[in-house]
């Protein structure tokens, strides 16, 4: 009896194996054809790749933005996804950063983007070991490494404009700010936003609360609920996934009472789609844009031309379109927009210096 059962097990294994082998064969053929067409189209031999932080490539935030920039660069140059073209690797844990950076460098990508301040140490370590590799890190400065370019955004400038718009548009005179984790990056958003509000109306107090997370949407909703309950009508979030909780709360209130005066301001990408209640109503006032895609594309182009800004810090601000406010699609009045444009010009001209960190 035992023998029979053993035989049965073996038979089923072989059967499964042969079915799989058939599947495998089909795949291979398909792959070959795609790679063939790839080589004929290829016009450039410059390849670029990126390592995400733990947020993943579809985080609707800067990982995704960077990838969009890299994809755009790849298409422009007729590159294919994969070796010798453009590609990305996702990090599931912090310990994956170094492994992923190394594996892309070992696959001979000419330029590797490291997305997010969390990759600081990994980049510094790999840069020392792989002297020939070119790495660009986004949202963080890795100093004194000849083969690392640091890309930063003056998000405080765009946040300032969001503050101006919020202060002008607020009916209750109360405005909220939800931060992700306390630190320099989010501090920039907060400082700019508060300064912008104060520039229009110094009497408005900005209600600031940090979620101490970039992922906890429930926490975001909890904070948003408290703020709206206390009379706040516009909330700006710089908190990644936490913001989704803010949007949920605002949308629920709007769905229950179409006249409710609740607004949210998005971050990083144009989050208009996230604020949709129904076809005619949307709770998104505007979004503070960080054009990581533009920056990634530009740095890739520089590197391609042999002008990789290694060892340098490049900052993008309002003046070069690296940060901006998203189209409000009518949510912000014409009058407010004119004021916002005035302030924008002043910042670009250097008349206003936006604070980089909140006062303590």
């Amino acid at each position, binding site marked *: 009896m*035992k023998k029979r059962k053993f035989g049965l097990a073996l038979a089923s*294994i072989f059967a499964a194996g042969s079915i*799989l082998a058939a599947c495998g064969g089909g795949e291979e053929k398909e792959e070959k054809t795609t790679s063939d067409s790839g080589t004929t189209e290829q016009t450039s031999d410059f390849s670029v790749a990126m390592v995400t932080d733990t947020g993943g490539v579809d985080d609707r935030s800067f990982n995704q933005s960077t990838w969009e920039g890299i994809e755009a660069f790849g298409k422009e140059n007729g590159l294919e996804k994969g070796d010798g073209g453009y590609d990305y690797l996702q990090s599931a844990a*912090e310990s994956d950063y*170094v*492994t992923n950076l190394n594996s892309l460098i070992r696959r001979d990508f000419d330029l590797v983007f490291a997305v997010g301040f*969390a990759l600081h140490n990994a980049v510094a370590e790999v840069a020392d070991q792989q002297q020939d590799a070119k790495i660009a890190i986004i949202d963080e400065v890795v100093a004194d490494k000849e083969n690392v370019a640091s890309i930063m955004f003056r998000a405080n400038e765009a946040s300032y404009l969001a503050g101006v718009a919020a202060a002008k548009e607020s009916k209750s005179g109360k405005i909220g700010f939800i931060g992700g984790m306390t630190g320099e990056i989010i501090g920039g958003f907060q400082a700019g936003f508060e300064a912008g509000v104060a520039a229009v109306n110094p009497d408005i107090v900005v209600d600031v609360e940090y979620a101490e*997370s970039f*992922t906890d949407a429930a926490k975001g909703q909890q904070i948003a609920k408290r703020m709206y309950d206390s009379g706040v009508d516009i909330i700006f979030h710089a908190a990644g996934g936490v913001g989704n909780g803010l949007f949920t709360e605002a949308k629920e209130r709007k769905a229950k009472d179409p006249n409710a005066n609740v607004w949210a301001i998005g971050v990083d990408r144009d989050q208009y789609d996230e604020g949709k209640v129904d076809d005619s109503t949307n709770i998104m006032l505007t979004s503070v844009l960080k054009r990581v895609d533009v920056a990634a594309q530009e740095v890739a182009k520089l590197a391609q031309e042999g002008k990789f800004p290694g060892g340098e810090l490049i900052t993008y601000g309002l003046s070069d379109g690296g940060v901006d406010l998203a189209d409000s699609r009518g949510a912000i009045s014409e009058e407010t927009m004119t004021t916002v444009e005035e302030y924008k010009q002043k910042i670009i001209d250097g008349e206003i210096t936006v604070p980089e960190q909140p006062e303590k």
Partner: protein
Amino acid sequence: MSKRLVNILVPLISILLGLIIGAIVMAVSGFNPIDGYVALWNGIFMDTYTMGETVRQITPYIFSGLAVAFAFRTGLFNIGVEGQLIMGWLAAAWVGQAFELPAVIHVPVALIAAAAAGALWAFIPGLLKAKLQVHEVIVTIMMNYTALHVVNALIGVISGGEERTEKIHESASLRSDFLETITDYSRMHWGFLIALLAVVIMWFILQKTTLGYELKAVGFNKNASEYAGMNVNKNIILAMVISGAFAGLGGAMEALGTFENMSKLHASTGIGFDGIAVALLGANQPFGVLLGAILFGALKNGGLNMPSEAGVPTEIVSIVIALIIFFVASGYIIRVALERFGKKRKEEK
């Protein structure tokens, strides 16, 4: 079938089953399973670099697995290994950067600090369980969150508002030029020797000491142990403290080896939770945990190579790895089923 044959066959069949179902998942999702598994293999064994990284990945799993297993033997379900581990991580990172000592003293001091921090974090639920009968599962789960936020706040204090602590001094590091040279700059470090030692220590405590005998007795039957004159409360607290110390040492591996500092954590590291699976895979035996950690760590590290080499997305990789582990874990079910079925036939005859 002889018993020995069953012992060899069961794990082999279960791994094979896991691989086959994993392959079906890949094939159905439109990826070539053969390429996928070649990439997995290469991600574990391709060259000295990947092998070094695999060992590095395995090391903390050994500790988190031992921590869970140790508490299990006393009948305690320590889900707080995650929190104890990050407390240990911070303690080791702090000792590593705050003091300047010769390496012979520095490394042990950092390790002891990590073990103590982990032990302290486990002592609280142990005490609550012993004195007030508060269930350790609830307390340890909650203390994972407290640990996360306490550690993030402390990193801010230690570093003066930065996102991460400073790098530890060379004298506290477990890394070595020698290991870097032979593994082509992988992050492999001497911690794996400490982990192996910990496996032996756990085996020794459980099998060769009175303490271990008492701990196991409490695990088997609390009331009987008490009747036999053992101090059940003392043993519960001790089991948690030792378990926490193992977890804390796992954190020290990250602090003194892999990262050489600590960054603010956005979410749990997952090492502590994976430790539960590692312990179950290893049937809560010290050497079983070692094997479980090797399987877990190797799959985790090899899996990283699958998106890179075979284009299989990370999500599918997680499913495939989970399937393999699932079937290995259910190997015990297969074995029990085999034995039961075999016995019945015999009786019928």
